[in-house]
């Protein structure tokens, strides 16, 4: 029932914003106060979380090596999968962050009669994860047009490419379709793939439904409820927000407040949720460390010099007789040791 709960939560949010924003005087709350609050929570929370991670040291060098390490000169190193220099690490991280390299390895295993275990390549999650994330990124970037005047040239190019199919009026953005498809896939697999369903928590369904609803309300505004909103007023509000002089014009429309409220929720929720993987992916020690722990000493700030091995002297004291008998060299001969004792 966890997946149903995420719907209830988002429906509640939609009702709050849809009804709340229609109460006279509340527009300021939904249009100005909450967005500022959400941004503050997002930035503050994000910074806090990253600082909190950074506070804990990385005591040991624990990269997961996924290829041949640097060794003899006739053995070819896999620089991107088993980096030794900072540049190589940067290369590895680039592939992880922009292409989800590790997810690309994904396989699906099955056990057949025999027994026979098989591993077939399975790139669907990788593909739809990329579709979703890049669409999200492009949509966020496109939204900058509301906050910037004049609209930068690169944004116009981005919009041009995104709407290149020229379907409908206004022209449909590809990323609008892609993000919905991506989210449907990600949500669908949580319901259908049995092991993913079993591990899924409320916190896994909720962001998907939330982002889906944000996308849907956005699409509704752009293509279907165009007349319910006043785009000029919205742009003025957006610019007002970034210049710290927000004004609420008349006739913004409930659908806009719903969209905005859901975005505020996402921003506020972000730092306290798994969405922080956006920061964590940069800081994961198994990926962002060089595999050079034998050539360069890694320092552990809390290394305890008091932990010493059981001493050789103690060892020899216990076994000296046997050692001498067996002709193993000793530090103190038997007689000398006895004299002292």
């Amino acid at each position, binding site marked *: 029932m966890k997946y149903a709960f995420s719907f209830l939560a988002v429906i509640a949010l939609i009702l709050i914003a849809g009804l709340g924003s229609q109460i006279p005087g509340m527009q300021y709350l939904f249009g100005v106060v909450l967005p500022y609050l959400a941004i503050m929570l997002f930035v503050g929370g994000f910074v806090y979380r990253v600082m*909190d991670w950074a506070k*804990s040291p*990385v*005591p040991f060098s*624990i990269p997961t*090596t*996924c*290829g*041949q*390490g640097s*060794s*003899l000169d*006739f*053995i070819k190193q896999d620089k991107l*999968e*088993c980096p030794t220099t900072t540049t190589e690490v940067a290369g590895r991280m680039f592939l*992880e962050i922009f292409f989800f390299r*590790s*997810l690309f*390895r*994904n*396989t699906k*295993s099955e*056990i057949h*009669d*025999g*027994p026979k275990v098989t*591993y077939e390549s399975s790139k669907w*999650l990788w593909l739809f994860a990329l579709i979703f994330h890049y669409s999200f990124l492009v949509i966020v970037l496109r939204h900058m047009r509301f906050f910037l005047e004049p609209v930068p040239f690169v944004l116009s190019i981005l919009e041009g490419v995104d709407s290149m199919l020229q379907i409908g009026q206004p022209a449909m953005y590809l990323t609008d379709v892609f993000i919905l498809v991506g989210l449907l896939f990600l949500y669908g697999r949580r319901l259908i793939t*049995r*092991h*993913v369903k*079993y*591990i*899924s928590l*409320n*916190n*896994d369904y909720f962001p998907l439904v939330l982002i889906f609803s944000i996308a849907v309300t956005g699409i509704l505004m752009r293509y279907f409820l165009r007349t319910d909103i006043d785009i000029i007023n919205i742009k003025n509000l957006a610019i007002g927000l970034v210049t710290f002089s927000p004004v609420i014009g008349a006739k913004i429309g409930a659908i806009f407040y719903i969209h905005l409220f859901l975005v505020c929720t996402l921003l506020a929720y972000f730092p306290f949720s798994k969405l922080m*993987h956006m920061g964590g*992916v940069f*800081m*994961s*020690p*198994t990926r962002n460390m060089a*595999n050079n722990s034998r*050539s*360069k*000493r890694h320092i552990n700030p809390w*290394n*305890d010099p*008091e932990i*010493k*091995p059981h001493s*050789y002297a103690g*060892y*020899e004291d216990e*076994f000296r007789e046997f050692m001498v008998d*067996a002709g*193993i*060299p000793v530090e103190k001969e038997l007689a000398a040791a006895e004299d002292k004792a």
Partner: protein
Amino acid sequence: MAVAKLEQLAKSVVQGPTMATGAVPVKDWMDVSAIFKPGNYAYQAKQEKVEYLNSQKGLHFPNAREWSPEDDDWKLPENWKEIILKGLKERLDKFRSLKIFMDCCVRCGACADKCHFFLGTGDPKNMPVLRAELLRSIYRNDFTLGGKLLGKMAGAREMTVGVLKEWFMYSYQCTECRRCSVFCPYGIDTAEVTMMLRELLHLVGVGINWILEPVSNSNRTGNHMGLQPHTFKDNVDFLADDIENLTGIKTNHSFNRKGAEVLFITPSADVFAEPGLYTAMGYLMLFEHIGLDYTWSTYASEGGNFGLFTNNETMKKLNGKMYAEAKRLGVKYIIGGECGHMWRVVHQYMDTMNGPADFLEVPKSPMTGTTFHNAASTKMVHISEFTADLIKHGKLNLDKSRNAHVKATFHDSCNPARAMGLLDEPRYILDHVVDGWVEMPENTIREQTFCCGSGTGLNTDEIMELRMRSGLPRANAVKHVIDKHAVNMLSCVCAIDRATLTSLMNYWNPGCNVCGVSELVGNALIMEGENRQELTEGLRTLV
């Protein structure tokens, strides 16, 4: 505990109503409790072992007592919960990895079917993501805002004795092999989580004997097997006698010799039992062949480090002997034998914990003049690196036909593969000592290699069925090359593997033997002044 017959188990892993075969458990995982019965857990540590370890300086193994996992009452300290939560807090502050791994998992499930324990048992809690959730749910409850506010709705739950028992069960059904970490988009390494779980459990006196006894032995006698100095020497001397019988070569080896150029350290299992013995014979012959000025040590007579499977303090204490002995003997550098977890410690922990080794020199092969820059700081070279370099420079006189009885494949051990990147050195050696060796299927080798199923101190007999299940993915890949290429030898560079893969092969693929790569080197060596018998089985030939 009798192990299921092959036919039964072969059926059970395919048809058993498990998550791996398509069934879906009816209960939420939080509502399923761990039940201990003979065969599904490794025996608890003996009281005297725990007492001994706790008495050692720098170590902390409290709450020694008689207890059994099957009992309801585990005789935990009164304030066990406080100890655990405080221990968790401490570790969050000490390990960034733990914090990040607790916070970043999106439960995408990419790691789920990558774990050999999951594939072999179908138990959902053996999916790496759920193994980590066992701890993450507690972390959420006590250390995150969402968990504190929303409790179970946010995937949090309270720490209870039931949870502790679950931790014990599933942190000892993980071999810290890191395969899951290869596939996770954030590199979340469940091995790290398992390490933390095991550390926490030791704080309240919950540990297994198969780990703590070798640890005590290693601390006292220098090696896991508990071999005292004279016995250790005898064992090596026996191997030398065997070599003399087989090849007519008398090896010139020494023990605890000051002033040698190199200290050689390998897992004590290599001088203790088959088939590791043949690998050790390979070392002796190789060093004789090239006239290396080296010594064994009876004090640092263990390459392996079961401390790695308990807590970082113990790992450090045991590992400290290597440098201490190298310093005492005044050697220039150390060569390490074939072993997986040993090399995890040497490669990723030793220098940090017990360095800097500024009393040693950057390793340089006296035969080839090669400087091992990759070991410039730690000053310890892997035998495969050392051997590959010798071969490259034509310093070994090799005859592949002496391995004509061998059709080999190669098993990458977890740690050299995923915590070191040692993949092609052993392959280079194989190319030069055996004819036509073959690789197993691509998703089961190199960084994607499957664990033997019995690492991290789980190579104990009372959980044999579990081991045969978790070893299934590896065994199955071997079977593939047996059927296709008539492979009869599974080679590897790990002492635990040599023991555990042997049991695994005997069970799933009878007739396939296991060997160390250095054994195959020993087989192929043409030694000066040799008087070699007709060795149809190489060093294994009975004469």
